[in-house]
Each structure stands twice: as structure tokens, then as C-alpha cells.
């Protein structure tokens, strides 16, 4: 789908011509239809699992979103857009969940991008040795299970016994001690902080790969022309990293919009609805047996992500990123 450059398409044509001549010359390969070489049923297993367990629930969910489906329903009937009305009712906690998810997404995208960029620049041009060791260590939290991370941070952030507050008190900064996960105004930001701690290494690793892909000569000629360090960062590094930013933003978005684990373990969406996200709300609605509303919410979310996925495919298939 990427338009090939003039020279490659010329090569491809030449190769094809040679191949065609070869086939005509020996007359062996062309006769067998492609399907007996590469049978489509090879894709059948993957497709079957995917259709049954990913696509079917998605489509079924859209249909059932217009019904009165609950844990106690004996007979399903259509209720039109009633479930969607419930989602957007005044003071609806679904709206709160969407707002929280959006704030979480924007904040983690910005924080991870900025911190990861800083660390990536530091490790690629600020250090002479040990850069790959630092990279490996800073990436490690990204692989740890969210549950493990959540449990540990929940203890560290405990208002009375937690290490964070007791360290602040030891440093005579007790005034900064907070009820990190219990304060309505602070809880979501604490979750954002923990999530950034965990996820920043992944983004950093991608940015390091991007930085190493920028040709050295650009910087050399810039410094010959008397450009300062800041100027080469501003006018070479940032523009050259644009496609990398697109990729990391997509990765951050796709993760953040469906965040569940870290929120569920740290706060279960509380206090109140202060940290409730789309996925934690769906989970609690299922627990209450409110399947119709839950699947309406899930389907709405699916449509949003589907629109986003076309952007994802576009971004991931950028020709200039192929190395």
C-alpha cells in the first residue's frame, strides 16, 4: 500500500518480467493455481478464534445494547436507545468515567512522551558508557504485571504507614504528606503517576531507536553552520522524530483508553467515582448484573476505538519508518 519509489518499482518490474519469462520458458510454475500452493484455509484457525472470541462478542454487544438485558431478565426485548440515554443522563457516572479516562489518557500521553524524550536524549547523547544498561533498567518496570506494581505502590502510598509519607516526614517535609489514593482531588493523579513510572521505559526505548536513526551528518553540518545544541534539537531532532511521536502516541492512546488493571488494584475506581474509568465502570456494572447498559457502554467505546484503529493502521504503515 506504500507507493514504491521509482527505482524499486522498476526493479520489481524487471524481476517480474524475468519471473514471467522463466515461467513461460519452463512452463511449470504458472500452471498450478495459487490456492494449491498457499491454501487460504491456513488462515482459518486464526480467523476462527478471532471471529468467535473477538469479533462476535463485539457485534453481539452492539445488538444487545438496544435490549433490556440484565442478570434478572427472563425475556429479552428491544428498548431502543434507552441504554444510551442512561449513559448520558445528567450526573451519570458513565460520563464521569469517560472524563476520567480522557484526563488519564491526555496526562499519561504528555507525561510519558516528555519524560521518555528527555531520557532518550540523555542516554543517546549525554553518556559515553553504560547507556544500554540504563536503557535496560529503565525499561524493566514496563514488563512487570500491573497487579504486582499496584499492590506495591498501594503500600508505598499508604497515608499512615507508607514509605512515601514516612520519608517526607523524616525529611521534615511532613507538610507534603498526602492521602495519595484516598483524596478525591489527588487519587487520579497518583494513578497517573504510577502508570507513568511503569510505562515510560517502553516509550523511551522506541524514542532511542528513533534518535539513533537520525543521520549524524545533519548534526555535523548544523554545528558547522554555528547552530547551538538547543537549535539542533529544535530544528533537527524534533522534526525528524515526528513519525516516532505518531507511533508512541498511538501506543499510549490504545493502552490508556482501555486502562483497567492499575486503577482496579490501586483504587477500584474510588474514592467515589474519582478514578473510575471506562473499563472499571463496565466491570462494576457487570457485577451489578446491568448487562444492557454495560454492553452499550462497551459498544460505544468499541466504535470510538474502531475509528481510532484506522488511524493506527495508517500510522503503523508509514513508509518512512521502515528500516
Amino acid at each position, binding site marked *: 500500500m506504500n507507493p514504491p519509489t521509482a527505482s524499486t518499482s522498476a526493479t520489481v518490474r524487471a524481476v517480474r518480467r524475468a519471473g514471467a519469462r522463466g515461467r513461460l520458458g519452463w512452463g*511449470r*510454475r504458472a500452471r498450478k493455481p495459487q490456492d*494449491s*500452493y*498457499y*491454501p*487460504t484455509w*491456513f*488462515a482459518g*484457525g*486464526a*480467523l476462527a478464534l*478471532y471471529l*468467535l*472470541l*473477538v*469479533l462476535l*462478542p*463485539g457485534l*453481539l*454487544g452492539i445488538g*444487545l445494547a438496544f435490549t433490556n438485558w440484565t442478570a434478572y431478565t427472563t425475556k429479552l426485548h428491544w428498548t431502543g436507545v434507552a441504554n444510551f440515554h442512561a449513559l448520558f443522563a445528567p450526573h451519570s457516572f458513565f460520563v464521569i468515567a469517560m472524563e476520567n479516562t480522557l484526563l488519564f489518557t491526555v496526562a499519561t500521553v504528555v507525561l510519558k512522551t516528555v519524560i521518555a524524550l528527555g531520557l532518550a536524549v*540523555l542516554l543517546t547523547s*549525554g*553518556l559515553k558508557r553504560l547507556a544500554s544498561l540504563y536503557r535496560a*533498567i*529503565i*525499561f*524493566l518496570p514496563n*514488563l*512487570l*504485571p500491573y*497487579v*504486582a506494581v499496584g*499492590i*506495591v*505502590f498501594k503500600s*508505598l502510598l499508604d497515608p499512615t*504507614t507508607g*514509605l512515601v509519607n514516612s520519608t517526607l516526614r523524616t525529611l521534615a517535609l511532613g507538610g507534603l504528606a498526602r492521602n495519595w489514593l484516598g483524596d478525591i482531588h489527588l487519587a487520579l493523579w497518583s494513578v497517573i503517576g504510577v502508570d507513568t513510572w511503569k510505562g515510560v*521505559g517502553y516509550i523511551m*526505548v*522506541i524514542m532511542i531507536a528513533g534518535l539513533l536513526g537520525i543521520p549524524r551528518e545533519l548534526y555535523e553540518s548544523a554545528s558547522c553552520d554555528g547552530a547551538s545544541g538547543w537549535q539542533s534539537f529544535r530544528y533537527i531532532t524534533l522534526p525528524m522524530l515526528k513519525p516516532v511521536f505518531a*507511533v508512541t502516541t498511538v*501506543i499510549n492512546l490504545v493502552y490508556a483508553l482501555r486502562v483497567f488493571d492499575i486503577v482496579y*488494584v490501586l483504587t477500584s475506581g474510588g474514592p467515589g467515582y474519582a478514578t473510575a474509568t471506562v473499563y472499571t465502570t*463496565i466491570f462494576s456494572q*457487570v457485577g451489578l448484573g446491568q448487562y444492557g447498559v454495560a*454492553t452499550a457502554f*462497551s*459498544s460505544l467505546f*468499541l466504535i470510538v*476505538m*474502531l475509528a*481510532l*484503529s484506522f488511524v493506527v*493502521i495508517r500510522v*503503523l*504503515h*508509514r513508509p518512512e519508518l521502515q528500516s
Partner: protein
Amino acid sequence: MSAVRAIRAIPTTINYLIASGAGIIALAPIYIVVVNSLKTAHAAVGLSPSLPLHPHWGNFSAVNAQAGLARAFFNSFVYALGATAIAVLLSGLAAYVLARRRTRRHLVIYFLLIMGIAIPTNYVTLTKVMQDAHLIDTQIGIILVYASQMIPFNVFLIYAFVDSVPRDLDEAAFIDGASPLVAFGKVILPLLRPVLLTCAVLDVLNVWSDFINPLYFLSNSSEWPMTLSVFNFYGTGASEEISNWALVSADVLMTILPVIVIYIIAQRWILSGLITGSVKG
């Protein structure tokens, strides 16, 4: 002269200080888990970073008795290997055929599959499908769910790689009279090994860390993986008394240890896989 050199050295020193600070912040929680997993219940309150006076190895057998650590560890192991084997094999077969044949129909199937990278699971209706298929609360059920969720990304990674394998190789096998399956198994599969290994490592880590699927689909505690088991053990411990933090740390350590070991062994595969997956089309 030496004073000038010392001044010049300052920025580099500061860079190393910042990088070390970031490294310490990244490792601190892991360090805290390790030291507290070896403390007595009393010493572990508040998860202080101090070293244990005497390593308390009995915590691990205690957590095995109280939280069924060995059972959960084994379950995680089975889910990770089972789902990975299915996902990698099916994705390899699919990506191979879809990459070799570029008709409109095959492209549609490919895009349908990789759409799954971004679209979210509807857990409400997936639960219903699982019930109707008698897969809920079963180990094979959760393995199939994991496989289905990893297929899109695996197909995406392998598809790009298949392009780098010359067609002449499979055509040579066909001329020798190999069937499609034999040609795939004997010729293509060995050549795809790097990308299949990358997929396998990422899949294993993915399943090992997952929490939401067992939360929805496994109600029977004997089938819980480590993540759900440690969460429930921590939940009961925290509500009854805080003095269980040494045992919680031991349980958490056993949840993260395999990940760290795999990372140390397969670091190159993991990083290259994630970078290629994100940067290459």
C-alpha cells in the same frame, strides 16, 4: 589545566547522576519487594527499604500453604505456554498465506485481523459467548481467549517478516513436490524462527501479566493464575491485618521473578520485537 578538565566533566557527571536517579527510581519498588519478602511479618510493616536482619526463607512455604502459590504458579505457566503455542502457530500459518497472496480477499482478511490490535474486548458479551460455548471457568477456555487476543499483533509482526523470505524458497519446495503444509513446516517455519521467537516471548510475558481475563472468566480459585491469586491474597491480608506484608511481598516476588528472568535471558528479543512492532510496517 586540571581545573578546566574538572569543569568540563561536570555536565557528563550530572548526566550520569540523572540517569542513575532514573535507574534507582525504576528499580526501587523491585528492591523493596525483594528485601521485604525475607523479613518477619513485624519487620515488613510499611515495606521499609531496610535489609532483613535474618533472611526469613519460611515466608515462601507459608505463602504456598496460605495462598496456594505453587498451584497458581503452575496455572500461569500452563496458560502462558498453551496460549502462546496456539497463537504463534495459527498466526504463523495465517500470516504466511496472507503475505504470499495479495488478492483483495486476502488483504481484507489481513486488515480484519490486525484491526484487533486496537479494538477493545467487549467483556460483557464475551462472557456470554464463553458461557454458551461451555468455555467459562475452564482452563482451555482462558487459553483460547488469550490466543484470540494475541493473534492480531502476532499476525502483524509475522506478516512483515514473511515478506523478507524469498518466494523462490517455497516455490523450490513445491517443484520438489512438497505439499503446502510440508513446505511451510520444513522450509518456511525455520526461516521465520526469529520473528516467531519474538512473538512467543512477548506472548508469554503478556499472558503471565494479565489480570482482567481471569477476573471475568475464572471464578474457581483452583484455576487462578498468579496475578489473580496474589491480588486475592493481598486483599484478604490487607483487610484482616497489615502484618501480612512479608507474605504479600513473597507472593509478589514470585509473580515478578519469572518476568525478570525472561527479560534477562531474552532482553534482545523483547526490545527488538517491541521496536519493530511499533516502528516497522
